[in-house]
């Protein structure tokens, strides 16, 4: 640990020995991220910080989850509300891997269809969309086939 960069990283994330740090979450979406990743149901130790200063986001949030690692498919579910999130995978206090999130090709749940006449807004159905454009987002509903654009997006 004489390498100064590694040392700095270690200090920043030293709260956990094994697990995942999710950084650069927009502060206002912290609790949505927790809910999408179902961290409100885990028994692992979680710490989070909100309203931290960030050059990129203004105010950001950070989540540290002990002993839990995420599959790409799971973590990409937060890309819609935390597109700049960065993951640090921690093993034995060391950052062993860094990952970014990517908007998936298919979005299941999370987002409401904007069409009030869509069956998904009238009955308890998990929404499902094909991603037509990533920036700005355009999601095509599997059921009514209408397109929900980023400015119309409501998180469930």
């Amino acid at each position, binding site marked *: 640990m004489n390498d100064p960069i590694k040392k700095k990283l270690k200090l920043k994330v030293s709260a956990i020995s094994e697990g995942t740090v999710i950084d650069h979450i927009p502060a206002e979406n912290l609790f949505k991220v927790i809910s999408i990743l179902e961290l409100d149901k885990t028994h692992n130790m979680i710490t989070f910080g909100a309203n931290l200063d960030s050059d990129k986001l203004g105010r950001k949030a950070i989540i540290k989850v002990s002993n839990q690692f995420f599959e790409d498919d799971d973590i990409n579910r937060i890309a819609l509300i935390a597109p700049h999130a960065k993951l640090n995978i921690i093993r034995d206090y060391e950052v062993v891997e860094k990952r970014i999130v990517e908007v998936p090709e298919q979005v299941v749940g999370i987002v409401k269809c904007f069409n009030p*006449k869509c069956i998904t807004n009238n009955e*308890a159905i998990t929404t499902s969309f094909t991603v037509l454009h990533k920036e700005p987002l355009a999601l095509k509903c599997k059921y009514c*086939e209408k397109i929900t654009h980023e400015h119309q997006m409501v998180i469930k």
Partner: protein
Amino acid sequence: MDYSKEEYLRIMELAAEFEQNPNQRLLEGKVVATLFFEPSTRTRLSFETAINRLGGRIIGFSDSNSSSVTKGETLHDTIRMVSNYADLIVMRHPLEGSARYAAEISSVPIINAGDGANQHPTQTLLDMYSIIKTQKTLDNLNIFMVGDLKYGRTVHSLLMAMSQFENPIFNFIAPDELQMPDEYKIHLREQGIRYFEHREFTDFISEADIVYMTRVQKERFSDPIEYEQVKNVYILRNSMLKNTKPNMRILHPLPRVNEIHPDVDKNEKAYYFEQARNGIFTREAIIAHTLNLI
């Protein structure tokens, strides 16, 4: 529910066979449920005629007021229940995407007889059968669409289906408020398909192979004065058919209001009543195709 070009042609072929021989007891011993969560007498009678001609038995309801749906039962529960009773479900529902959802939870096949403003695939198939029957082909056709091109789901579905065939040309004739939506024009441009837009409905339909008329409905206009101005502009009259091609035929999903003048009815190019009759054979074909009966 989205058919490929090959499936379209297969269903057209079956429809032609049913037209030759409409009474075939392929549904003998089978029960078909017709669930009309919103009333549509025309579509329901067409389906029930098709089912009867195939020898099937029918259960169901003709609008949700006469069913448990008014007691608050979900679509989910209705479909789960009925799919235990019937071998096939034909459903019409006011909400968009309801047929796709029903197909996911049903243990028997679902035929979509219209889901709100989204789709009405059996209408599209009977339109296509009417086209292939009168033109002997689905390729190289010049199709004029007239009236409400913004909200008319029949023209949207027909456009998507016909754009799978060789070299179509589309002409759109509609008032400003009811023009073909951009998403369909983008689709045509991406496919390299030619289309032309017109505001006036005059004599240039001489190029047309098919003239597809639709209703211009008052409730689609935000400004009632606008409606009064256009309601008599998009009317097809017999005098306009003078220089049209001999193979040209006029289609309309029916019911019409005033957009086709009654003096057109006796013209041999008026095809809308036969088009409705073709619906029976097309629906027999769709049922046979869906249940793999042939």
